[in-house]
């Protein structure tokens, strides 16, 4: 045997991607090192911990919260969270009577600088199709049962405008500082499919 095949041959998809990258590099259209930096940025550096810091600041600093609700892009930029897919931001405040839910029915628009890249379910047909039509049932699917008198507002993101939900601060957190509060805030709560739970 001239060839020892210890593993399955690469899938068509893997070949397609390898072919594309090798050609783009040869043509000088992309720099492989720059690709690695992009991947590292969005895999390890930018993510929902950013958004959690924004939320915790809004919970503890009324002046910041006012800025955040009136001009979210600028208030978020105070943390240095700027850039692609977050140029124009709106923050939606949840209250005892109003629950906000965000979706992108057309594709996957999502506030990258504060939440990172969206999870698969956010980009999937079931969520995109039903979030706008039966949000209460969708929330129930995520384990969130809202009282009937809570109004649900659904916000469909666009390439130009993206949303971040400001969840309600949970009870029993009066003594917690900003950092401890941020640790409680989840990605799902900032998309609007969950509430923030109090400290365990």
């Amino acid at each position: 045997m001239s060839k020892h095949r210890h593993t399955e041959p690469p899938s068509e998809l893997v070949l397609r991607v390898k072919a594309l990258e090798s050609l783009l590099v040869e043509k000088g259209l992309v720099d492989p090192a720059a690709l690695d930096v992009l991947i590292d940025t969005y895999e390890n550096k930018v993510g929902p911990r950013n958004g959690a810091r924004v939320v915790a600041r809004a919970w503890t600093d009324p002046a910041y919260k006012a800025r955040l609700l009136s001009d979210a892009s600028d208030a978020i930029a105070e943390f240095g969270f700027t850039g692609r897919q977050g140029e124009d931001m709106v923050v939606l405040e949840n209250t005892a009577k109003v629950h906000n839910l965000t979706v992108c029915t057309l594709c996957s628009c999502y506030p990258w600088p504060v939440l990172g890249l969206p999870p698969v379910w956010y980009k999937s047909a079931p969520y995109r199709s039903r979030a706008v039509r039966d949000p209460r049932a969708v929330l129930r699917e995520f384990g969130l049962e809202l009282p009937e008198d809570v109004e649900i507002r659904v916000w469909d993101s666009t390439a130009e405008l993206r949303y971040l939900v400001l969840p309600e601060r949970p009870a029993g957190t009066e003594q917690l500082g900003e950092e401890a509060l941020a640790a409680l805030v989840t990605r799902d709560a900032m998309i609007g499919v969950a509430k923030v739970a109090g400290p365990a």
Partner: protein
Amino acid sequence: MNGVHDLGGMDGHGPIAYEVDEPVFHAEWERRVFAMTIAMGFYGAWNIDSSRHARERTPAAEYLSSSYYEIWLGGLERLLDESGLLPRAETEARIAALRAQAG
């Protein structure tokens, strides 16, 4: 342009599949497709609307049966071909060469 990507309100897509502790990427090829797409966006031969339009032109049945980054890959190949930066025939030839190498 309406199309299959315009999913708001559509019935029949089943339950939401939630993955606990989901990783940002599920395979190395997804990382490469993501990064190539963003890098080529910076290159400036097209804008975000063109790249969305390129993905939205995925044939309907294929769109619904493809994963997210497969749709991105198809969109990127389409834009590269249409812009003349990388004709599809060249990509196909390279795929064939790599396949032959892999035996």
